[in-house]
């Protein structure tokens, strides 16, 4: 086995040593540029006030402190809705929206990938077209729909639009399509119905795609601020709350407590991505449009 592998690698077109070196240097420089703003935000969040405002500004921190985080916590406790309520709202909205989207998209992706029925191509074309119906285009009519259906200012206004997003169904369908047919046929001969096949065969075999859909959807919902749809303070999410308690006019609070808020808000999607990165790449293999 080993021999075959090395001989295959050798059959690639020639890679020069200097070419490789140049490539590593370039990639290293780009990676540094990519990560620098994040590292900078983190360092700012642990800087004491005098270091935040010194001239010339320094990239490093001399006396790291958690003051900015406790400052942020104190700011948060001055508003009448407790911070825990915002956290609950965020987790509830993001989790409910993500799980319902993943479940419904998987259910719908199975017949689109493996069944033949009238209207299938029309539905799939609509879904590919739907990749372009981003919130930027649809937020205005969404507002009208929400106000007409009395969903304005409810959790529903935040959760429901995400469930019908195209991307998740598109990725699921492409992934399920490449699962081998014979196992499905075998199950059908054993008398399993389609729902049973979905839960016993498709879902266990499509976990990489399901986790990828969960990642994209969770990130989308976590990063989403739609202030028009919610105006009750007690229904707002953590992001909306943190963005409004860090006063925009106060540069020092903004630099210190603001960086702390940024760090807290950026961590969950990053952590989720690091955890399931390999599954995401595996799923994206099938994400082509022909």
């Amino acid at each position, binding site marked *: 086995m080993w021999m075959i592998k090395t001989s295959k690698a050798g*059959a*690639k*077109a*020639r890679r020069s040593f200097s070419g490789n070196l140049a490539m590593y240097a370039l*990639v290293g420089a780009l*990676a540094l540029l990519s*990560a620098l*703003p*994040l590292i*900078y*935000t983190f360092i*700012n969040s642990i800087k004491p006030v005098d270091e935040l405002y010194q*001239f*010339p*500004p320094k990239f490093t921190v001399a006396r790291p402190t958690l003051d900015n985080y406790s400052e942020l916590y104190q700011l948060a406790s001055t508003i009448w809705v407790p911070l825990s309520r915002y956290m609950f709202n965020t987790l509830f909205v993001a989790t409910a929206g993500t799980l319902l989207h993943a479940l*419904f998209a998987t*259910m*719908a992706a199975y*017949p*689109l990938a493996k069944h033949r029925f*009238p209207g299938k191509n029309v539905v799939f074309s609509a879904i590919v077209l*739907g*990749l*372009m*119906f*981003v919130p*930027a*285009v*649809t937020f*205005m*009519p*969404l*507002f*009208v729909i929400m*106000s007409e259906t009395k969903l304005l200012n409810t959790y529903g206004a935040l959760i429901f*639009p995400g469930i*019908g997003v195209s*991307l998740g*169904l598109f990725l699921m369908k492409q992934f399920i399509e490449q699962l081998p047919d014979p196992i499905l046929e075998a199950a059908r001969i054993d008398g399993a*119905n389609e729902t049973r096949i*979905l839960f016993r065969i498709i879902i266990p075999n499509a976990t990489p795609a399901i986790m990828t859909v969960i990642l994209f959807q969770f*990130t989308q919902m976590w*990063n989403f601020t739609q202030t028009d749809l919610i105006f009750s303070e007690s229904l707002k999410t953590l*992001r909306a709350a943190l963005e409004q308690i860090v006063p925009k006019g106060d540069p020092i609070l*903004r630099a210190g407590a*603001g960086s702390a808020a*940024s760090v807290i*808000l*950026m961590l969950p999607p990053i952590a989720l*991505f690091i955890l399931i*990165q390999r599954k995401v*790449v*595996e*799923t*994206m*293999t099938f*994400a*082509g*449009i*022909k």
Partner: protein
Amino acid sequence: MIRALKEHKESYLLLTPYMIFFLAFTIAPVIICIALGFTYFSMVEPPRFIGWHNYVRMFLDDDVFIIAVKNTLIFAFITGPIGYVLSFIVAWMINDMPRTIRSILTTIFYIPAIAAPSIYPMWFQVFSPDEYGYVNSFLINLGFIDQPVAWLLDPKYMMGVLILIQLWLSLGISFLAFVAGLQTIDKSLYEAGVMDGIKNRFQELWYITLPSMVPQLVFGAVMQIVASFSIADVSIELAGFPSTDYAAETIVTHLRDYLNIRYELGYTSAISVFLFLMMVFSSRLTTKLLHKVGS
């Protein structure tokens, strides 16, 4: 019709829950936009039909809209292609690296796309208009400028700075599709390529790699086009809403202006339809071009 429904009952049943939400919150909004685009509507009184007036007004009677279209096209034509090519080149460069290094680099390059909405405020400190800002203090120390520059307030620099920041966060879902696509190319194609006289990795890229990943390239292009035509957050968060002299107004910030501040929903709809048509048209065109790759 009824027979088809009965015969494929299970397929339709599985599709139903998703389709309800898809039709109500993805398709219906677009239909509402198309319909309201021909009306005057302010949510207070019922919509009043006014024909093509909104579309005529967009081009003949709204100077800021023209600025918005111009800026959107600048964003789309600069950040779109550069972000797309950059995503591919980075994915291609890390493709030959050992698996662990590749995973770490994929994560580092992708993180800005998911963390960006959380750290917009940080860019204020980097591009701060006083000498405490990193860019200003750096350039003053090197002697390039002697007065601090208001990067995000001065219409002269605004777009340039926003384009840089947008490029920083542009290695998103297309980048992941490219990383994945490159991994699946049949290795025997490369061997055959060497036999056929392919000498260096650039020839290999053009004759073997690119033609084998057209589907991923098309998917990446569609996602990139949608993202670059709907740029708004970076402008609203950093240049302000509205920005100085509308210098960083895009079609989507213009939409928000007419929706949230002026409540002109009919006009907003017409602008949405225009934006949507631009996206569909560009995606079609790009898809056609990409199918010619390597041939």
